[in-house]
């Protein structure tokens, strides 16, 4: 009973090409209708002297479900001897594209309905493209209303050739084409005598021939780290790396590698609640692991098996993107990207080729991506993330873009382009080329100030006491007659960054502004001090770049969250402030930034 398989099928196509009739037929021919429903509707049609249509059946069911409000995405349940089906009826109207996407995202196969009489229409193409982008691999095209086309093999073959040609351009190979008349029932549940020339499967046979995605188990292991749990307060000391296995499998004792940090460990245990002990986890399972060694990993990393083919790591990549936002996607603006469990700020770097929403023509010269456009473009994240190109593994190559709290676009990564010059590097090169210097040179300032300029970042987890140390250090330098300035980050939030609001997708811009401030303050000869919570390798790399040609010193408090970067000084969390200040002063002396420091 529990073992009975279920499959989600999405049905798409242009308005009035007969989706509802197909569903009505499937429900009726598999005996999945509530008792007496078919008779009741036939009777109501007879009384109102209008011809019965299977679409009415669906409308009547929907009305009941909808209780008077417009339904947007209906689910119909029916079953064959082989398995249970949920048919997701995605609306054909363009306004409902968001619902169509939501429906098709969950489908394992798609039925695409085309009217034999009307031929290929706008949404026949658009839906074909969407279904392909969303990763629905199994597409069967139903050439409907064959009764209106005289059950003609020529009409069917012509349409099949035209649409196959379109699909091949968007790299879709349909599983099959079936000529049907949903109204008359031809080729739905049984082969039609009126189309004896057709030798393929009926629609019902085709449904049962669709396969569930089994090959995921065979792919390299991919585990997007969703979270790290430690429920110490409930007397549980396990540190559990939690998430859902996206592909492949892993077992106790296997080596694991976290990307992009590059940290390594091995699986100590597979954790679960109310099950027999597990030693193994594979694709599809929501699981959790403890590791053999204590390493600091963050949500958003990708855990893989280093013995298998590795994913890509990068921050610049070519994608196919579908845009749904009310506002167009533009360059210069920061968005938030979610890929697997990773989140990052992201910018649109280049637009290569765009399929225009209005007339389905291709354009290489568009400057922005409009609502419903499908675009091949280049995106750049503020920090590297681990991903697969979709030819390698699908679920770790799909992403969405958030604009103003809303999911405004989705797409797939096609190619890693991280070797090229990043937007940030271009920006620094440009800025430094045009930097207007005054007449006072840096060495002159250093001589008068009796110290050199420096940007000092105190980092570590919140509550490690880094702010107290940073402030005390500024005071110490000042009392020693030096030009030091401590900048509280909260002041930037409320001042310089006030225009950014509280949006989480502007983290990259906030960091850029700190880096630009550092560039100016160090140019002015200051020892410029600030604090950043939980900075990682890429934050420091970014600040370093922005502060060029000047340099940066990093003091870390408590647990070291960096993966490759070595902080210049490591302090204990919550240690005595005076001792900490001394250690920082010693560091500055060693680095020849200051000559002397008196308490």
């Amino acid at each position, binding site marked *: 009973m529990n073992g009975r398989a279920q499959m989600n099928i999405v049905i798409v196509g242009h308005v009035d090409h007969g989706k509802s009739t197909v569903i009505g037929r499937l429900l009726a021919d598999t005996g999945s209708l509530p008792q007496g429903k078919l008779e009741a509707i036939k009777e109501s049609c007879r009384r109102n002297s209008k011809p019965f249509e299977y679409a009415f059946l669906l409308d009547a069911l929907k009305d009941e479900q909808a209780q008077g409000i417009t339904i947007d995405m209906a689910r119909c349940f029916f079953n064959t001897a082989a398995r249970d089906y949920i048919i997701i009826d995605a609306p054909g109207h363009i306004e409902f594209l968001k619902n169509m996407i*939501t429906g098709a995202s969950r489908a394992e196969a798609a039925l695409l309905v085309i009217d034999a009489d009307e031929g290929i229409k706008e949404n026949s193409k658009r839906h074909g493209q969407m279904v392909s982008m969303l990763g629905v691999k199994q597409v069967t095209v139903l050439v409907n209303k064959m009764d209106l086309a005289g059950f003609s093999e020529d009409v069917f073959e012509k349409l099949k050739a035209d649409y196959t040609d379109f699909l091949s351009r968007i790299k879709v190979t349909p599983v099959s084409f079936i000529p049907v008349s949903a109204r008359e029932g031809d080729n739905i549940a049984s082969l039609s005598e009126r189309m004896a020339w057709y030798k393929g499967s009926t629609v019902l046979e085709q449904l049962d021939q669709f396969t569930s995605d089994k090959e995921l188990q065979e792919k390299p292991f991919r585990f997007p780290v969703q979270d790290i749990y430690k429920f110490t307060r409930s007397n549980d000391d396990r540190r559990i790396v939690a998430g*859902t296995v996206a592909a492949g499998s892993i077992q106790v004792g296997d080596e694991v590698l976290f990307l992009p940090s590059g940290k390594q460990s091995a699986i100590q245990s597979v954790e679960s609640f109310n099950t027999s002990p597990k030693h193994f986890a594979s694709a599809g399972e*929501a699981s959790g692991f403890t590791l053999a060694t204590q390493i600091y990993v963050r949500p958003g990393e990708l855990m893989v098996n280093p013995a298998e083919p590795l994913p890509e790591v990068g921050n610049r990549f070519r994608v196919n993107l579908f845009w749904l936002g009310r506002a167009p996607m533009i360059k210069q603006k920061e968005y938030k990207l979610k890929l697997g469990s990773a989140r990052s700020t992201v910018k649109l770097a280049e637009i290569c080729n765009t399929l225009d929403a209005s007339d389905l023509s291709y354009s290489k010269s568009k400057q922005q991506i409009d609502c419903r456009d499908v675009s091949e473009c280049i995106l750049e994240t503020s920090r590297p993330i681990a991903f697969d190109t979709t030819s390698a593994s699908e679920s770790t190559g799909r992403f*969405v873009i958030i604009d103003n709290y809303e999911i405004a676009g989705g797409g797939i990564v096609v190619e890693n382009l991280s070797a090229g010059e990043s937007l940030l590097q271009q920006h620094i090169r440009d800025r430094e080329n045009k930097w207007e210097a005054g007449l006072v040179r840096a060495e002159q300032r250093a001589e008068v100030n009796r110290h050199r300029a420096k940007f000092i970042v105190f980092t570590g987890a919140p509550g490690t006491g880094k702010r107290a140390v940073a402030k005390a250090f500024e005071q110490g330098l000042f009392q020693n007659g030096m030009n030091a300035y401590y900048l509280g980050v909260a002041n930037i939030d409320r001042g310089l960054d006030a225009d950014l609001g509280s949006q*989480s997708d502007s983290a990259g811009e906030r960091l850029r502004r700190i880096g630009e401030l550092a560039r100016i303050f160090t140019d002015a000869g200051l020892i410029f001090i600030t604090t950043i919570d939980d900075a990682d390798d890429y934050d420091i790399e970014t600040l370093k770049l922005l502060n060029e040609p000047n340099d940066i010193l990093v003091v870390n408090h408590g647990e070291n969250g960096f993966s490759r970067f070595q902080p210049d000084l490591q302090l204990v969390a919550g240690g005595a402030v005076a001792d900490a200040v001394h250690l920082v002063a010693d560091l500055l002396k060693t680095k020849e930034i200051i000559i002397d420091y008196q308490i």
Partner: protein
Amino acid sequence: MDHLDKLEAQSVYILREAYREFKSLCMLWSIGKDSTVMLWLARKAFFGHVPIPLVHIDTHYKIPEMIEYRDRFALEWNLNMIYGENSEALAEKLTFPDGNTDRITCCKYLKSEALKHTLSGEWPRYRMDHEQRRYVVDKGRDPYTGVIVGVRADEEGSRSKERYFSPRDKDNVWDVGDQPPEFWNQFKTDFAPGTHVRIHPLLDWTEQNIWEYVEREKIPVVSLYFNQGASTRYRSLGCYPCTNPVLSDARTVPEIIDELKSGKFSNIAERSGRAQDSEDGGLETLRRDGYM
């Protein structure tokens, strides 16, 4: 993985996603079979723990066994248990059982209003103190920005249109016609100040799946769901003045599953024993206004 394994994995993923993304998160626990399965799924997701407060809206007309059950498992499973109520309407007897309102208005006062103001923190929240083993007024008054709810798409029309992560605006209103897209397993986890998101981990479960899972996991459920000898049982639980049992001989979970599979109820809505659904406007009206 069989079908129940897949449903479980998806629900766990949704719960973990909610826990990761929402700082002020709660889970509504109605004590019914669905939200109890959801609570169990949280224990799955968090390896035996439930790091999310559970909120129950107490109309004080719940069948007494439901409240006993709630408090027993709140203590046994170390739950952060919170209840809220509309004390004003109760004090002024503005209820259907008191004969002062119709059913829908009673639901609106005792459930929708109580829920809205408990979630926003405007009305007092009562938290189970595990040392004193009784409820105390909770100090936390922060509005919940993520609310996990155990609705299922197959229950009723308006629920079939929900997303896994479904936004509600400042006035708690649900814009059914313009919902965000859900691409693959990426959900709406970003929200503007003042708005909140309803999270639905059980959307794809059917009534039969729920009972199959209760059986597989041996989840304790209120005995009201079983025939105790009078050849009736409750199929959906609510307040006693407005909830009626169905005719049934099912005394155990496997018998309930057999009964559902027999098709006996295929033409009878699961909530048909809930009188408020059949009044003017019914559940849809209630739900647009913030009812679950």
